[in-house]
């Protein structure tokens, strides 16, 4: 397995939906501590809608269309801060993949990097601001470092995202709702970093399955 094919990408998205669903309560609990407690509900509403769309949509059989429909659906169902960020991210992936049949490990890292840039353009968060960026950036770096095997690379990315999400706890939030808490945001993991960890875990499962 050395490419992310449309079939695998579809299984990535669907498995993300499952993981989000299983962890919705946990994501909301994290958000309740330093935000407004809706991150789990937002993400689960969004990815359930995506799953429904994909299951009823045979046309999304190329990467570009698949990611586009994912992005559009997230945009119109998630709301909050994470809606435009995740929605924009997948729309950007869709654009990057418009004319590609499949992605190798290096392509995948490039495409994810472009998505990350879209998140940062929109949200203006820097690494260390205690946001989803803090999980996504090190995950992509780990993916690159892990080499050409997509299974190894995505597993490395998932592990890095998980560790990075945990490592957001000591940070002081500078973006999003958590920033209103100032010092009191310290000691809690960022919910968005945790949903990114689930996204990458689902990617590793999809390619490794």
């Amino acid at each position, binding site marked *: 397995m050395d490419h992310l094919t449309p079939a695998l990408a579809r299984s990535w998205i669907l498995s993300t939906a499952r993981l989000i669903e299983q962890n919705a309560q946990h994501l*909301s609990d994290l958000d*309740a501590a330093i*935000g*407004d*407690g*809706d991150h789990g*509900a*937002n993400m689960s*509403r969004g990815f359930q809608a995506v799953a429904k769309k994909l299951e009823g949509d045979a046309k999304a059989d190329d990467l570009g269309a698949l990611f586009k429909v994912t992005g559009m659906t997230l*945009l*119109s*169902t*998630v*709301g*909050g*801060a*994470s*809606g*435009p*960020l995740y929605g924009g991210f997948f729309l950007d992936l869709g654009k990057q993949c418009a004319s590609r049949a499949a992605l190798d490990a290096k392509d995948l890292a490039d495409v994810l990097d472009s998505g990350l840039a879209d998140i940062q353009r*929109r*949200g203006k968060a820097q690494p260390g601001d205690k946001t989803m960026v803090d999980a996504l950036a090190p995950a992509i770096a780990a993916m690159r470092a892990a080499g050409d095997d997509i299974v190894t690379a995505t597993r490395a990315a998932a592990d890095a995202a998980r560790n990075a999400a945990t490592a957001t706890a000591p940070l002081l939030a*500078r*973006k*999003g*709702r958590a*920033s*209103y*808490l*100032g010092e*009191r945001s310290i000691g809690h993991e960022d919910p968005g970093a945790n949903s990114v960890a689930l996204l990458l875990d689902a990617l590793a499962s999809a390619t490794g399955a």
Partner: protein
Amino acid sequence: MKKLINSPENVVREELEGLQLAHADRLRVSFDPFYVVRRDAPVKGKVGLLSGGGSGHEPLHGGFVGPGMLDAACPGHVFTSPTPDQMFEAGKAIHSGTGVLQIVKNYTGDVMNFDLAAEMLREEGIAVESVLTDDDVAVEDSLYTAGRRGVGLTVLMEKLLGAAAQKGMPLDQLKALGDKIRASGRSMGMALTPCTVPHLGKPSFELAENEMEVGIGIHGEPGRKRMPLTSADQITEMLMEPVISDLPFRKGDQVILFVNGMGGTPLIELYIVYRKAAEIAARHGLTISRNLVGSYITSLEMAGASITMLRADDALLDLWDAPVNTPALRWGA
């Protein structure tokens, strides 16, 4: 969780159904996507005024749709920003050729979603401007936060721009007026109890029987500091002082003073707060030219209050006095 609801998922839809049934003379509700719109929209020759945000702050924004105030409001899920497709459809429904002005509370999610909607509306050839409210002095306004939150000033902004739009003010002037109001108003709030988001089923934070949370926003997020509960007079000082010194309001200023309940605090207590706020304003040489006392921008059933002050010249006072006819704010009509 003790609420008069049927199921957490249906809270917003059913509330909108009730709103439409109760006020069909003034507004109608679109259910796909969700938005509340003036029954007579689009109003010929008038800039369309659009706002929105998470639900749970009622009557904001849907209760302020009607002549003299908003043309449309987009409710998100409880405490969750609405999505761009809502503002896109609502914006189209209220555009009569003279453009759309969005009133956006400064929260990351609201700002990003309204920005996306504005892009989409512009692609349709509709002129769109946005005015932010970021009046919450509890948030340190620095490069290192998401900036101040939009809270109580939003209500005054919607009334004042609503009156100006009704009088035929063009889009660019409305935007400038909105920016002026934004620069002239400040707020601060506190909570005695947390609130419970329906689909979470447990309180947004915990407060002991003798504690209060000062510097809360309107999203059930914890505030800036937790303190022992004290008297209404001391709490009012604690809210008024930063509001006054931040702008700053100066001796001789005319102001609109807005004492707002967070949803679970009865009117009797709001008047006790108003009494002290008026006394403090007088002590600072401020003239309260107009006031508003009531629960207009809430956090579900949270108990607590916020104070908003807006420096107002005679032109703003005229706009304040102009007729308004919405479910939640009405006079002169």
